[in-house]
């Protein structure tokens, strides 16, 4: 496999073979972000495909000042923010069956060490978190996904969204606070509560 910069240079000369190698190299990274933003697998694929189509058309504009993957993420998040399509679920449900040519099977979940109740709790909390994220405005969701799930720095997020550091700070702060409020409201309904010292659940919940 050639160096990415070499492939980019060839793709800039409209070499589709080189660009295909770039697609293969970066498809997972782009798809994961698309999925986290768009939620629905089909919407995510549409978004990710569109990202690569635009990337190919605009590849002459890529000057190598950022990592190529980050550049693709920039296209991804901006395309998504500008799309009018409503968004669904931001986190993949582990219960969603996987459809293959051999039929339908359960998604495999890595086994974690720990007590079953703790696992159950994590799972429930994950679902609640998913719903809470869903309810946030697009701008807030984007900034949360980039920071918490993609692990971008404030500076990188500012560059990805073409906004100032101050805007990133305040948007992230508001998004986190909104998420916290949504979470505490929902978890109380479930009998699970989020505490400062970690996860806890009420006695009644544990027995069921």
């Amino acid at each position, binding site marked *: 496999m050639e160096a990415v910069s070499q492939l980019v240079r*060839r793709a800039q*000369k*409209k*070499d*589709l*073979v080189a*660009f*295909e190698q770039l*697609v*293969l190299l970066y*498809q*997972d990274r*782009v*798809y*994961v972000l698309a*999925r*986290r933003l768009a939620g629905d*697998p*089909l919407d995510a*694929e549409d978004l*990710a*495909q569109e990202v*690569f*189509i635009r990337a*190919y058309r605009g590849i002459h504009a890529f000057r190598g000042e950022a990592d190529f993957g980050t550049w693709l993420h920039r296209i991804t998040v901006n395309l998504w923010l500008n799309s009018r399509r409503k968004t669904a679920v931001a*986190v*993949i449900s*582990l219960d969603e069956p996987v459809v293959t*040519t051999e039929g339908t099977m359960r998604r495999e*979940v*890595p086994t974690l060490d720990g007590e079953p109740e703790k696992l159950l709790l*994590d799972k429930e*909390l*994950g679902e609640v*978190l998913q719903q809470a994220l869903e309810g946030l405005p697009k701008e807030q969701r984007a900034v*949360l996904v980039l920071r*918490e*799930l993609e*692990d971008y720095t*404030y500076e990188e997020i500012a560059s990805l969204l073409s906004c100032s550091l101050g805007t990133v*700070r305040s948007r*992230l*702060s508001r998004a*986190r*606070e909104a*998420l*916290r409020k949504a*979470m*505490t409201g929902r978890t109380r309904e479930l009998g699970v509560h*989020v*505490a*400062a*010292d*970690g*996860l806890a659940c009420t006695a009644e919940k544990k027995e069921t």
Partner: protein
Amino acid sequence: MDCKEVSSRASLWLDGKLAAGESDFLRHLDVCRACAREVGELQTILTVLRDGRGRNTVSAPEGFAMRVMDRLQAERVPRFGRLPLRSLALAASFLFLLGMNSILVGRYLGEGSQVTLPSGPAAGSDQIMEIPPASLPDADEQPQISKPEVFIVPVKPAPRAEAKPQSKPLVEQPADVKHPTPERQRQVMVASLAAVTIPGPEVFVQQRRVTEGVLLKVAVTRLDEASRRLVEVAGRQGLDPVAVSEMLAADGRLIKVYRYEVPYLLSSRFVTEALNLNLGRVLDERHVTEDVSSEYGQKLEQYRQLAAKALDARGAEAEELYGAMNGLIRQLAGMHSTSRDKKAVTFWLES
């Protein structure tokens, strides 16, 4: 620091970005239970969110890259339909359709020319980069490579593979092919291959198949103008090109190649008339004779082996195989279509 300020700074503090004022912030948490609880909740939520990262990682769906490349390819190369980009044999078939071998093309491009083949593993210096034929007429008017009447014996998959029950009857492709399953892709590919038939070896290999051709290399000043006049004069004689290609050499020269298949009796007149157009300076005139019988036999055998393998293949492997088969079929069709009473006349126009 009051509760409101603490709330607005909690996010920064959690990211370790509250250098100035951190002690004030912590002092407030020590004395305000409500704020301490809120910051703690936030911390827990973010931890759970980040912990879920690893578990929720997904890969791009199967065939994703192929669908992207198909879309790009469709925008870009209308000439020969939508050939699969990864078709390994496509590049070679291209050269063949142009009536020249790769060594000759390398020589024509000039010493040390570094160019790239449209796809596949290319050999050494004889590489060409195909570029979109922007100034050519509509795809509808383009000559088809595979004229059904020239194909004699339909080739089914190799006999040993025929017994396999997987070769299902082909069904009509539904309107929604945006996210085809691997099985669907396979059926579509089988369908497109089934539409092209090529002569069997017993018909072909037993006879000598000799292609005669003339290759004219002309340096022109205006490529579009020269191409237009060439096509015009050919059209007046009822000739359409069987293949047209544009290439870009690494040194920036734009090259356009037209291949005509002309009845022997007409060929010398056609060449003379074309040269009388004074398209440009004739750099080279070359007469080529090529016996392609054994090459045809080899390629046919190769095709049959791939066909046998493809019946069992799935996913990316199947894509590769069908891509390669498509390329081979086109090469075979190209070899076959030059019948013995016709001469290949190829114009290499470069600016």
